[in-house]
């Protein structure tokens, strides 16, 4: 039983890593309608900026804040001068552009900071808390709390605020949004900027655990995408729950279903996606979109 609870807790903390990235992907999707494969790369770049600032003697909290600010402008500029060109065109191309951006940013990080591993200072103490028959590290707990806070903020942004409404309206139908007086260009830039901020938070959150390398987020990207699809792209809560579900079920399947084992556990989220989407095409928490012809 102890092992079972521990596995669930482990799954939640691993799932939180996926969730951190997934939330940024959801934000860009809600604000621009794109899936941004480069989100993880941008998060890594933000983490490197924080690390570098820290290296210049800036206290880590300030360094992170600095990285967050830089990330916002970076995200907005990327939208304005790169993605904008493709937003009006073939969406396939736009997606491949984000893939190219991921490659470029990863290469850029490697060029500036090399592929050497960098230790990123942890924001949370390396302590553990007993919980039933299991232990959880303060770091994991901290990550989970931050994720939940971001998730709620994001949910509130989308559903409760004018800005959130404008972001979504622009993604859905830019012309209609403009006819209602929304500055579409600025909205797109803000969407990317905010997503880059979320990415920055995700990056500095997981960097202490994963060790900062240019490809730090690559492993999490597929899981994050899976969580986005499973949870329903329109729902921050759904995506976080899906990420946790993936983390937990993956662990449980690996340990308790001998046929799957630790090597094939990566199949679990995809089986989950398949089963769930057959029943609910809009994802666990997504809103149902009725398409008329």
């Amino acid at each position, binding site marked *: 039983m102890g092992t079972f609870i521990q596995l669930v807790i482990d799954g939640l903390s691993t799932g939180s890593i996926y969730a951190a990235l997934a939330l940024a992907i959801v934000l860009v999707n809600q604000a621009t309608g794109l899936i941004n494969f480069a989100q993880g790369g941008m998060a890594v770049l933000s983490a490197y900026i924080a690390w570098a600032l820290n290296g210049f003697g800036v206290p880590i909290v300030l360094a992170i804040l600095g990285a967050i600010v830089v990330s916002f402008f970076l995200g907005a500029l990327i939208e304005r001068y790169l993605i904008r060109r493709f937003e009006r065109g*073939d969406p396939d191309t736009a997606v491949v552009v984000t893939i190219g951006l991921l490659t*470029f940013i990863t290469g850029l990080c490697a060029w500036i900071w090399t592929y050497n591993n960098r230790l990123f200072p942890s924001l949370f103490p390396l302590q553990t808390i007993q919980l039933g028959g299991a232990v959880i590290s303060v770091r994991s707990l901290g990550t989970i709390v931050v994720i939940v806070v971001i998730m709620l903020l994001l949910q509130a942004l989308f559903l409760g605020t004018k800005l959130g409404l404008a972001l979504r309206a622009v993604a859905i139908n830019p012309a209609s949004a403009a006819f209602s007086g929304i500055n579409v260009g600025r909205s797109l830039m803000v969407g990317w900027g905010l997503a880059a901020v979320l990415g920055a938070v995700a990056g500095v959150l997981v960097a202490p655990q994963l060790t900062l390398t240019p490809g730090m987020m690559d492993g999490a990207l597929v899981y994050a995408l899976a969580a986005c699809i499973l949870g329903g792209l329109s729902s921050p809560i759904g995506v976080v729950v899906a990420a946790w579900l993936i983390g937990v079920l993956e662990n449980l399947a690996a340990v308790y279903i001998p046929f799957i084992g630790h090597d094939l556990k990566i199949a679990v989220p995809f089986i989950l996606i398949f089963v769930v989407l057959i029943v609910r095409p809009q994802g666990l928490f997504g809103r149902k*979109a009725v398409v008329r012809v």
Partner: protein
Amino acid sequence: MPSTAEFWSRPWVRWAGIGLIVVLMIVGPLILPEFANQTIARIGVFAVAVLGLNVVMGYTGQVSLGQIFFVGVGAYATAYGVNAGWNIVLVFVLACVVPAVLGLLVALAAARLGGLAIAMVTIALPIVGVPLAKRLSDFTGGSQGTSARFSDAPEWTGLYDDQWQLYLVFLIGGITFLLTRNLVRGKYGRAFAIVKGNEAVAASMGVSPYRYKVLAFTIASLIGGVSGFLYMVVIQYTSPETLHFGHSIELLASMVIGGAGSIIGSLLGGAWYVLLPQITNLIDPNITAMLQGAILLVVLFILPGGLVSLPRLWRRRGRGSVAGPGGGPVGGAMQADAAASVPGSSTVGDALGAPQTQSPPPPPTTQS
């Protein structure tokens, strides 16, 4: 310009052009240096893989991130058959049939889904395929991989190995391209295009989207298997790394850069897949990732329609372009599903105001 166009439309010119290409394909390998032959052969391998991807994505509009899995299965089937001493023709048939059957089974399930979901289910293939290949080490040689050197030039030909291999690629790849070209220009191609355009409309026209999606996916897998066979002809070694999902993403990028829904685009995509790493290695091997990303972005910035649209870009000088960006599969699925419900769907361009500079929309690329 009209006079040149006329010139090229004359039948004898057409035949002469085809003849010239055939002659080039026969003479080229004999006179080109070894590394050039090997490079062209590799381009052939991945052009076939991109061609398969184009059938399911470019022509039918279903996002597949699993193409490299079928290439890998084809390669493994080839290696296994060769090492077991089976007849090479039988091995080739197996290398096509095994991936096709797997593709059919996957498609029967996956084609029920649409859009992003199908992308996630197909990306699972290479991701699960890698540990699976390691587990099935009796067939695959495990993580150390397996080699099969069956494509050395036979004595009687008097050819070098690279020449012989290139001829094999020309022969098998060429036939695959011709058959696929006929497929996408015929009745099935039209059905694929309708499914890509709008599934509900397809259904109302009596074209079952499900059946044609399954068919396209199966054909794509089969072509992937052909590519896998050629992979073994040229590279002669395969391992779980071969079917890493990153290569699937690279194939997708190559397809878009070459030109989605285009036969020539597939060829250019294969060239891109092979030559981009070589070119970046030539510039500076230490920053290949940065260079590859940058080159990709620059090329798409200039040619959003892919390399295949380069001549069209030229021709467009002095001519107005008609707006009308088409919704392609990946992004079409990945963008908010609004467009589907709004007949006169708007674009960001509309909302940003009247375009002051003329930026041509990607040309519709449903036929090549």
